[in-house]
């Protein structure tokens, strides 16, 4: 493989704090670069969802919305994030690595034997920030609802629980059982983010199995629904701000953020192409992708 090149991971880490919208761009870019590098080294894995949702992760983890201690993730009182769409693991790993909770260079072990960065998240691996195993679609959101119930009704703390699902994932009926219970139990500490890229493995979401209208469905299930551009830091901040306000004001309503994204966003040849759901870039493609991200 002559086109193979030496892959180096930057060691910069970013602080989690209230930011101006424009401050998120370098963080999202750094996440995207780590994703591309890890995937090309792995030789398998999912590019599209992770790259397309990097902006959401940048705002959620680095804008002061999720509270965590990078030096003692599981030992600390913290907010929790559940990746219900387990196949999008690379973006969660890259995001956590960029917080400094584990070395970014560990991204090089993605999908390799005995790695903490399993193809789909494995809680038994003990990677900081991985709250639950996932990979069977539609289950994470119910786990997140259980966590939010525990926080709000049993431990009576002010913790927040975030959960991201895909938009194909919400074809699973149990997702709607979870949604129903989130509003039934008045979980205003629960924030459901739908990565609405309109793509899944077999094609465009409405052609595989139509899930629209998503907004009206979520409203009917009792959510405060915010539709936003999932690549606009301002809109994402507004959405997360509204979730925080819902919790602080004790509205009793869970929040759903329908983030309109493009699969593979940030890498021109992947943008909005469902074919990029489940494959890694080749070495040539990775070189181009990294070049684009560096400009």
């Amino acid at each position, binding site marked *: 493989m002559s086109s193979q090149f030496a892959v180096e991971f930057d060691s910069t880490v970013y602080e989690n704090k209230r930011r101006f919208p424009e401050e998120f761009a370098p963080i999202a870019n750094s996440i995207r670069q780590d994703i591309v590098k890890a995937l090309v080294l792995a030789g398998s894995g999912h590019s599209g969802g992770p790259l397309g949702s990097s902006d959401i992760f940048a705002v959620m983890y680095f804008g002061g919305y999720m509270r965590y201690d990078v030096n003692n993730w599981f030992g600390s009182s913290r907010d929790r994030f559940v990746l219900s769409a387990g196949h999008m693991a690379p973006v969660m790993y890259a995001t956590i690595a960029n917080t400094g909770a584990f070395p970014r260079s560990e991204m090089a072990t993605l*999908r390799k034997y005995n790695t903490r960065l399993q*193809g*789909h998240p494995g809680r038994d691996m003990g990677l900081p920030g991985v709250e639950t195993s996932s990979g069977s679609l539609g289950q994470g959101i119910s786990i997140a609802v259980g966590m939010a119930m525990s926080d709000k009704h049993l431990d009576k703390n002010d913790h927040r629980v975030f959960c991201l699902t895909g938009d194909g994932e919400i*074809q699973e009926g149990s997702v709607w059982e979870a949604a129903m219970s989130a509003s039934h139990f008045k979980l205003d500490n629960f924030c459901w983010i739908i990565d609405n890229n309109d793509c899944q493995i077999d094609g465009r979401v409405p052609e595989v199995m139509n899930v629209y209208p998503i907004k009206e469905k979520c409203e009917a299930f009792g959510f405060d629904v915010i539709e936003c551009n999932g690549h606009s830091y301002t809109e994402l901040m507004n959405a997360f701000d509204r979730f925080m306000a819902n919790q602080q004001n004790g509205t009793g309503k869970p929040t759903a953020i329908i983030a309109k994204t493009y699969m593979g966003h940030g890498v021109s040849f992947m943008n909005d192409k469902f074919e990029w759901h489940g494959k890694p870039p080749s070495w040539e493609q990775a070189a181009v992708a990294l070049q684009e991200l560096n400009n």
Partner: protein
Amino acid sequence: MQEIQKLGMKPTRFGFGEGLVELGTRHDNVVVLGGDITGSVMTSLFKEKFPERFFSIGIAEQNATTIATGLALSGKIPFFASYGAFCALRNADQLRISVCYNEANVKIGGGHAGISVGPDGATHQVLEEVAFLRTLPHMTMIVPADFEEAKKATIAMGEMVGPAYIRFGRSPVPMFTTADSPFVLGKANQLTDGNDVAILTNGWMVWESIVAAQELAKRGIKARVINVHTVKPIDVEAIVTAARECGCIVTAEEHQVHGGLGGAVAEVVCKNSPVPMEFVGVKDSFGGSGEPEELMEKFGLTWKEIYASALVAMERRDKGSSGFRMVKDVAVYNG
């Protein structure tokens, strides 16, 4: 011992895809339901050929299983395929009550079975479904060993009446059967003759068992390798004969050691002709990421474990008080 040739490598899922197209050509009431991974489980071939008989259900395995039941109760022969993790276990209740209790003519194709799925890791490497499926009344459960066998098994399950499940893998595996090799549902195929030890196996592990038998032959041990492609209904006669004639058994499967082929064989053996048994499979653990061959090695799913287990089984038989025949030279087995 007789030579068994490796005729190349191909994933068993290709056989499933081609078998479905053949079935669609033969029977116009064969319909296919997709679960958003039609390319990887190869139902895409049927979709291209018979678009009017293909329905995309999306990522909704429970719904697909019960829709299939409705179609079956309306005279169709529905196939639903996904990864085995999701179309055998996610929908377990639907399979039990809607499909099996109704004796509905529903056919399930469960792909990405076993540890050889590779880098996707534990969530996708289903290792438990054989144990579940074979306990369902009316269910037929097949684990083909190679491409041709998968194709024949797919056609056979489509042409029998009643619920049936076929398990296939993602990675290319050695091919050693041809279009002319015998295949009858419920009838195990003996691949090598021998009376020293019986190796009962299915799926990818059949090839590993053949290799183990070749290695054992170098030590003068004649192993009887039997491909038990149908786990349910199980071939009682082949198992009992093997137990009586060999006096010890090794089972080998890409599945948990509990409850799968090994369990099925043990039930037959205990009842009819108890002999020492050794079980090769995944030992009560989840899988993990890695390359397929690497994982097969790490999780103890190669000919080497089968070989070692054969020696242990024989030693147990020969030293044991089970009353079965004593073998000439135990020292040889201790290596």
